[in-house]
C-alpha cells in the first residue's frame, strides 16, 4: 500500500521532472515551426517576443536569443515604414550580441544575422549608406563562410542580395541564380547540430531561384 503510494509519487514526480526539461524543447520546436508562416502573416514581432521570453527565462541558452534576433531582423527587413527600421535593427543587434555572449563568441549563424542587420540598415537610405553597410553586410557573410563552410545560409543570402541588386550594379537574376543553386545543394546536405539549431532558408532560396528562371 505504502509502496504503491510511493511508486505513484515517484512516477508523477519523475513525469513532472521530465516535463520540465522537455518544456524548453517543446516550446522551441513549436515556435520554430511557426517561423515560415510568420513572415506572410506579419507575425514576426510576436514571434520575436515569444522567443525572447524563452530566452530570458532560460538565461543560458543562446538559441532563443538567436531566433529572437532573427525574427526581429526579419521584421526590420520587411518593415515598410523606413523610419522604424533602424530601431528594429538595433534591437536585433542587442539580441544577437547577447546570443554571442552566451555562446561564448560569434559563430557562422550569428554572423549571418549580423549581415542581415547591416542590410536592414542599408535599406533605410541605400545611396548614402551603401559604402558603410554594404561592405559590412558582405564582410559578415564572408566571416560566416569562414566559420562554417557547410552553412548554406551565407550563399542563400548573397544570392538574395544579388537578386535585389540592379544588373548594372553587378546584381540581377543571372548573378543570383548560381548562388541560390549552390545554397540549395548545400541545404540538402546540411546537418544541423540539433533539431533546435537553425535550418531556415531552403524554401525561400528555392522560391528566389524559381523567380530567376
Amino acid at each position, binding site marked *: 500500500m505504502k509502496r*504503491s503510494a510511493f511508486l505513484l509519487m515517484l512516477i508523477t514526480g519523475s513525469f513532472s521532472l521530465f516535463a520540465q526539461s522537455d518544456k524548453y524543447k517543446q*516550446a522551441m520546436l513549436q515556435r520554430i515551426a511557426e517561423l515560415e508562416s510568420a513572415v506572410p502573416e506579419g507575425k514576426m514581432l510576436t514571434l520575436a517576443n515569444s522567443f525572447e521570453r524563452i530566452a530570458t527565462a532560460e538565461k543560458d541558452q543562446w538559441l532563443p536569443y538567436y531566433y529572437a534576433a532573427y525574427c526581429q531582423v526579419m521584421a526590420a527587413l520587411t518593415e515598410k515604414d523606413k523610419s522604424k527600421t533602424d530601431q528594429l535593427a538595433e534591437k536585433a543587434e542587442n539580441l544577437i550580441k547577447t546570443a554571442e555572449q552566451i555562446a561564448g563568441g560569434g559563430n557562422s549563424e550569428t554572423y549571418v544575422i549580423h549581415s542581415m542587420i547591416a542590410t536592414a540598415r542599408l535599406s533605410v537610405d541605400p545611396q548614402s549608406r551603401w559604402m558603410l553597410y554594404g561592405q559590412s553586410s558582405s564582410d559578415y557573410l564572408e566571416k560566416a563562410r569562414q566559420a562554417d563552410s557547410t552553412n548554406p545560409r551565407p550563399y542563400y543570402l548573397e544570392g538574395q542580395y544579388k537578386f535585389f541588386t540592379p544588373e*548594372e*550594379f553587378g546584381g540581377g537574376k543571372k548573378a543570383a541564380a548560381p548562388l541560390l543553386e549552390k545554397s540549395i545543394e548545400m541545404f540538402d546536405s546540411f546537418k544541423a547540430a540539433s533539431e533546435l539549431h537553425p535550418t531556415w532558408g531552403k524554401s525561400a532560396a528555392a522560391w528566389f531561384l524559381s523567380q530567376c528562371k
Partner: protein
Amino acid sequence: MKFLLICSFLCFTMVNSLNAQTLIKGKVRTPKGKPVPGASIALKDSYDGATSDSLGNFEFETTEKGAWLIQVSAIGFKQLEQPLEIGNQSITLDLVLREAVDELKAVVVTAGSFEASDAKRTTVLSAMDVVTTASANADVTGAIRTLPGTQQVGEKEGLFVRGGSGEEARVFIDGTLVNNFFYTSLPDIATRGRFSPFLFKGTVFSSGGYSALYGQALSGALILETIDLPEKTTASIGISTVGLSGGYQHLNEKKNASWGLNYGYTNLLPYFELFKQRPDYFRVPAFHYGDANFRVKTSKTGMLKFYATFQQNELGLRQPDIDSSALKNAFSLTNYNVYANLSWKERLGKKWKIYIGTSYSTNKDDIQNQLEDPDNKASQIEEPPFVTKSFDMVSKSDLLQVKTVIDRSLGTGLSAWRIGGEWLYFSDNLRYRDTFSVHTKPQDQFKAAFTEADIYITNDLAAKIGLRAEQSSLMDRANLAPRFSMAYKVGLKGQASLAYGVFYQKPERNQLIINPSLQFTKASHYIANYQLMTGDYTLRLETFYKEYEDLVKTHPKMSNNGRGYAKGIELFWRDKKTVKNVDYWFSYSYLDTKRDYLNYPGMLQPNFAANHTASLVVKKFMTKWKMQVNASYSFATGRPYYYFAYDPNREVYTVGAQGKTMPYNNMGLSLNYLPTIGKDKAKAFTVWVFSVTNVLNQKQIFNYNYSYDGRNKLGVRPAANQFFFLGCFISIGVDRTQDIINSNL
C-alpha cells in the same frame, strides 16, 4: 486502497489545478491613453506572455500560479515591471508605459543648425551630399552655400551668414578652430577651402545660436568631423583637367589602426590656355598638396586621430587699375601652409566621456602688389591714391591650441553635462619690405572655459544651457557669453525649437595693431525654428533676429562704435520621394540687415547682403547609365554697392554714390559616372566627374569698385564666366575579400 484512491484523486486535482489555465488580458497604453502596439508582455522567467495588437490589446493563458512579476517592454518605452498574483480567476490589466528618453525619438535642438552626417537621425544632408552637390565643385563650403542663411558671394571667400561678413563665420575641425581654412584672399576672387570634402564624415553648419563649446564667431560656425578608419586598404589615383593626385591608405589586419599619405598637384596652365580668363595671369596658379594621417582605435570606445597637411601655392595676376586707364596692378602671392590636428576621444566608465584635441597651424603669405605701366614695367607715382598701391609684405601667422571637453551623462536618459576649456596661442608676424611701415608681431594667449548641460525633461522637451568665458591677453579683456536653447516635440514628426545666445569675436588682427584697446565685437541671436521630418521629406522654417554691438569702426578713429542688426525668415524643403529616383532640396532666405561699421557713413545694408536668396539642388541617380546627375540653381537679388566719398573739410565719409548690382544667377551641373559599380571582379573603383558652373553662361556682376575720386566704377566679375572640370578618380582596393568569395564558388 481507499487511501490510495483519495491520494491519487488529490494528486489529479492538484495536477489539474496546476494545469488549469488562467486568462490574463488587458491593454497597454501611454499615460495619455494612446495604445502601444507591438509591446511584449511577459510573465518574468516563464515562457508565457503575449504581444499587444494594433489597439494595444493582448491576452494569454498561463498555468502558472502564485506571485509573479509581469514585465512589459516596447521599443521607445521604459520597461515596466509589476507584481502579479495569479489565482484561478482571469485577470484584466491596465498597463501604462512611459516613453523612454532615447536618441532615436527624443527632440533635438535644431534651431540655427544644419547637420550633414550619416549617423544621426536629425541630419538634413548626408556626407555624400556635401561631395556631390553640383555647384560645390568638391569644396566643403560649396554645398553649405545651398542652405538657407548663406549668401551667394562670388568676390570673396568665406561663409556670409545672415548679414555677417565672411570673417564672422569660423571653421572647426575635430573640435578645434582652423585659421586659414580658405586659401589666401585674392583681389576680387573668392578662393576655395583648403580641405577635401572626402576628409569629413560629419558636418554641422550653424547659422546662429551654436553651442558654448565654440566661440569667436559672430555669425556662424562650420563644425567638421574627420573620418574614422577606412573600410579597407586602398590606393587611389586621380587625373583631371587641373592636375594629378595619388594616395595610399593602409588598414591593419586587426582593423583597428590605419595610416595614409596623399599628394596632389594642381596647375591651371593647360586649362587657362584653353579657356580665357579675365585677369592676365603672369604666374599661373599652381598648388602642391600633401597630407599624412593615422587613426588608431585605442579601445572599443576610444579613437585617436592625426591629420596633417602641407601646402604650397603660388600665383600672380594682373588687373586694370581703377584709377587710371593705362596702369595695371600686378598682384603676386606665394603661400605656405602647414596644418596638423591630433585628437583623442574615449569613454571612461559608463557615464564619462573625454575629448582632448590639439592643433597647430602655420601660414605664410608672401604678397607683392606692383603698379605697372602698359608695358608691364613697374611704375612709381608718389601721390595718392597710387602711392599706397605698390607694396611688398610677408605675413606669417601661427596658431597652437589645446582643447578638452569632459562629458558626464546624467541619470539614465540623454541628459548630460559638459565642462571644458581651451587655450589658443596666436602669433602673427607682419613685415613690410618697404621703409615706412612698421614691423608688427602681435601675440595673443587666448583662453576659454565653458560648461553646458543638455537637459531632457521628457522625450518631448529638452533644453541646452551653456556658458562660455573667454579672455584675450593681447586685448587684456574678458567676456562671458550665455547660450540657451530648447526644443519641443510637436506631433509625431515635428518639433519646434528656440535659441538664444551671445557671441563675441576678437577684432581683426590689423585693427588690433592700430588700436590695441579695442573690445570684443558682440552679437546676440534670437532664433525660432520649426522642423517637420519624415523619412522622405524635410521641412524647416526659421526666423531670427540678430543684434550687433561694438562692431569695429575705422573712421573717424579705430573704435568699437559700430552696430547693426539682421532679421529674416528662411525656408528649407527636401523631398526624396515625389519624383522617383530624384532627390531635391530647395532653400529660400529673406534677409533684412543694416550695419554701421568700418568706414560706413551710417546704417547701411552691407554690400555682401542680398535681400532674397534661393537655391535648388537636384540629384538623380540613373541606374541604367550608372550615372548620377546633379544640378543646382542659385539665385539672389542684387546687392547694394557704394562709393564712400571723403570730405576732407568735415573729415567725414558720405555716401557719394550707390546702386544695386544685377541679380545673381548660377546654374551648376555635374555628372558622376561610375562604370565599375557593382562589378565583383573589378579590382578598381572608378569615378568620372564632369562639371560645369554657370551652364547658361549668365552674366554675373558681384559688386562695383569705385575709383578714388568716385568718377569711375568697374563691375567685379568672375575670373571666367564658366568653369569646366573633367576628372577621373580610381581607387584600387588592395583587400582581396571579393576574390576569396569568387574562388569559393
